[in-house]
């Protein structure tokens, strides 16, 4: 039952946190200390972070700025933005050579005219697939049909779909059905009862907690997940276990 205060019952890794300023204005979170304070307030142990500049401006510059946010305690886990262009691919390959790439995040190329189809992404997706690097994909940046078509061509590639909203209600199940290596991040997915229904249908291993802080507050979805009828084991998987497995995380790694 609820109370006026809340703290999570299971370890939590936030799988979707944005750091730094977008080109459109300042973030409400201006430092790693601020972010860590927010995580402490909501009981979040670690967070997967990417830089705002990597969304629509420059994945390579965003990744350089991301370095400034990494903390000595490694509570903040870097996620590197990537686009199918030479500068970005070279940067990712170098970071990977140094053992620093646990996951990548797709830069928005669709709004610049490149659809998410194999003819435009083969080099990138082949690299990520062969090197077992999971790819986070913002749903609003990619056509659902392209996702299904393209991911079928790379069956070993693990993907996490980000930012599903109720306006994606007609496509979410189909996307999860079409590719067994696709997971869903839950920061915006609020159709009534759908977390329970999706876990019943696909199993808890297909879902991860993310807040998309600071676009959204860190606490509400975490609170939601703790007030469903899913089991404690499934809750633990969604809140941390699945992303730990996907990123190969161990304590402090």
């Amino acid at each position, binding site marked *: 039952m609820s109370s*006026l*205060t809340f703290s999570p019952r299971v370890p939590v890794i936030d799988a979707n946190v944005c750091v730094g300023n977008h080109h459109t204005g300042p973030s409400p979170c201006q430092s790693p200390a601020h972010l860590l304070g927010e995580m402490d307030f909501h009981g979040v142990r670690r967070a997967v972070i990417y830089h705002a500049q990597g969304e629509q401006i420059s994945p390579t510059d965003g990744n350089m700025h991301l370095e400034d946010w990494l903390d000595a305690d490694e509570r903040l886990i870097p996620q590197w933005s990537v686009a199918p262009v030479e500068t970005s691919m070279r940067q990712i390959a170098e970071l990977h050579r140094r053992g620093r790439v646990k996951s990548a995040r797709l830069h928005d190329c669709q709004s610049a005219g490149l659809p998410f189809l194999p003819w435009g992404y083969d080099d990138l997706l082949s690299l990520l697939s062969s090197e077992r690097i999971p790819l986070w994909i913002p749903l609003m940046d990619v056509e659902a049909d392209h996702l299904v078509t393209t991911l079928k061509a790379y069956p070993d590639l693990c993907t996490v779909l980000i930012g599903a909203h109720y306006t994606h209600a007609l496509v979410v199940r189909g996307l999860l059905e079409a590719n067994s290596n696709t997971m869903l991040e839950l920061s915006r997915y609020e*159709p009534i009862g759908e977390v329970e229904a999706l876990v019943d249908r696909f199993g808890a291993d297909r879902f991860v907690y993310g807040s998309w802080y600071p676009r959204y*507050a860190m606490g509400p*979805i975490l609170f939601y997940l703790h007030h469903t009828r899913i089991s404690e084991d499934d809750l633990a998987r969604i809140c941390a276990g699945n992303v730990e497995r996907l990123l190969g995380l161990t304590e402090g790694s």
Partner: protein
Amino acid sequence: MIDGTRVIDYHGHVGRWERYGMVDDPELILGAMDAVGIDIACLFHIFHPDGTTGNDLTAQFVARNPDRFVGFAYVSPTMPDRMVPELERAIDKLGFPAIKLYPPYTPWPFNEEPWHPIYEFAQDRGLAIIFHTDHFINSRPRYFEDLAPAYPRVNFVSAHCGNVPEARAEAIAAAQKFPNVYLETCSTYRTPGVIEELVEKGGADRVLYGSDMPLMDPRPQIGKIITARISNEAKRMALGENAARLLGI
């Protein structure tokens, strides 16, 4: 109940909108409410401009669980001859205690003349009206600054509190100026600090928890209140005490 506070969700719907996963299944709705301690949900049906069709569906829905749901009346100025008679029927015969209006489904900003017969009716009865508000021209919260002093017996509720910062600032400004303006919290824009801003600037006694269920699950929406950096006293007011006062329940 949450820690002894009766919880009232001030924003919910009757009706189906399957393209967005919205299904008004009472079992689903009550299950989500019970999982977090929501005692009562206020519901309205906005998909029929005549008002009557939707209000009857709302009344039927409420009648199945009258201790858990409260129906609000819906009318539209696109059918002006029906507005006041339907309000009389919904309030007097169906027993609804408040009104819901949805400006995006009309050609008019909600401070314009076609809406005023509704406000005159509400003024006579001393009713609350909840408006969809956002940053588009028909639904700007700044219109409350025209309406609130003109209809002082009406309590004006800004649903979604405008959704985005510019419109939210208008809603807060109206609440600061007029005691009969309230701020309702549901939104998929779950920006950090919003609940804190509403409480700090608008006043804890003006904030109303709402969820937009079943379009959205009430649990993450109530999570916005519970996980906000506000006092427990402010949480109690937002979760139910303010709504109970407004509705007289």
